[in-house]
């Protein structure tokens, strides 16, 4: 299944993601930021107040995920995607204001988000939910980079290697199965 798949590296500085098409499998490597509900609420508040975000999201990718804690021996926790549609309300502004280019999660997005992905030439990639012991094998490192007080929902920087993902919505707004 994964043989002959395209590989891609974050950040998407040279718009490498634009050649990917909905329905394709891609192996993603590089750093991504884990952020979910509570962190997105703070991003939104910062954008509305025209304050600087604690991280530069230009050309970067957000992974909607919150892993189990790193163990005492330093081994990385189980990690996997949460339902992306809960972030739909925040996504258009985030794409427009920060230059965010990639999103990784599970499930489908609203029409509004699909339009925003097209107009900002971004991409939405789908992981398999509920296989977090397996996805952990594609993770090289995890560290907290912002909003540590949000505990389970803090923003993390995660390094991935050859993480298999489905292109659910490509940069032209095409959607898998549609």
């Amino acid at each position, binding site marked *: *299944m*994964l043989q002959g798949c395209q590989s891609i590296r974050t950040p998407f500085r040279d718009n490498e993601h634009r050649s990917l098409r909905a329905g394709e*499998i891609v192996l993603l490597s590089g750093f991504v930021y884990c952020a979910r*509900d*509570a962190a997105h609420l703070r991003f939104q508040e910062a954008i509305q107040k025209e304050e600087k975000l604690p991280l530069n999201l230009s050309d970067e990718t957000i992974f909607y*995920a*919150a*892993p*189990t*804690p*790193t*163990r*005492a021996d330093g081994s990385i*926790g*189980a*990690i*996997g995607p*949460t*339902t992306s*549609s*809960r972030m739909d309300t925040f996504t258009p502004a985030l794409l427009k204001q920060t230059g965010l280019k990639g999103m990784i999660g*599970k*499930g*489908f997005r609203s029409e509004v988000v699909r339009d925003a992905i097209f107009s900002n030439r971004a991409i939405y990639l*789908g992981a*398999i*939910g*509920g*296989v*977090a*012991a*397996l996805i*952990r*094998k594609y993770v090289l490192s995890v560290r907290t980079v912002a909003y540590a007080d*949000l*505990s*389970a*929902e803090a923003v993390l920087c995660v390094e991935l290697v050859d993480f298999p993902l*489905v292109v*659910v919505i490509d940069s032209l707004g095409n959607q*898998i*199965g549609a």
Partner: protein
Amino acid sequence: MARELSARVISATVKELFLKATVLLPQDMEEAIRAHQGQGGLEGYVMASILKNSEIAREENIPLCQDTGAAIVFVQLGQDVHIVDGFIGEAIQQGVREAYGEGFLRKSICNPLSRKNTSDNTPTFIHYDVVAGDSLTITAMPKGGGAENASLIEMLTPAEGIEGIKKLVINHLRKVGRNACPPLTVGIGIGATLESVGVLAKKALLLPLKAINPDPTLAHLEAELLVAINNLGFGAGGYGGWVSAFGVHILTMPCHIACLPVAINIQCHAARHLEVQL
């Protein structure tokens, strides 16, 4: 004659149940996935990934899913059991606290409005039934937020009847099923009252995957709904396919003449739950 049972034993049991339930894929679910792994394409890849995940989780003692859930506990307390060395409710909370802390499980419980995390995954949501006998049965169910968000309680009218129930289930699954980590198990409660119908739907998720309803009308409805859900075509993983659900289980209770409460509780493919009798 009352049989004495120590709250400390209850605490240790609850801790062990959550540590195991978050790591071990239930055997009936594993068998169902294995039976469908021949599917080609993306769906076949999803099935293979679920099996691989189960193997890694078991061998390396890593949770199956990063969402180690809200801790739900069902208690069947024999009326001839006398609990000593403490209070059963606190013993269960302590067991959960220790499992999530020492087991490095994710703490996913927060204040509903301020969203401040409680930091130890308590409170546990405990459902007590007092039963005959002198044994205590405890079922641990770490329940993920995604599948729980895809669940629903609706107060139908008696006129809507069985056709209304079918329409509700199918329309709802069409909307949310693909986001809830399929292949799903669907627990349906019919009847009772607002608060009880939700518990019925949740208890339906504890039935063995292959259990056939003893009521022929309900067995028929379960089979019909399962086919209809699979025909929705979201499939394993949710990105398209034909194995959207493995089972539909219905539990019913009589209800008020004015009412037809229906609850749909969705369970993801990890289907985590574990029971022990003390």
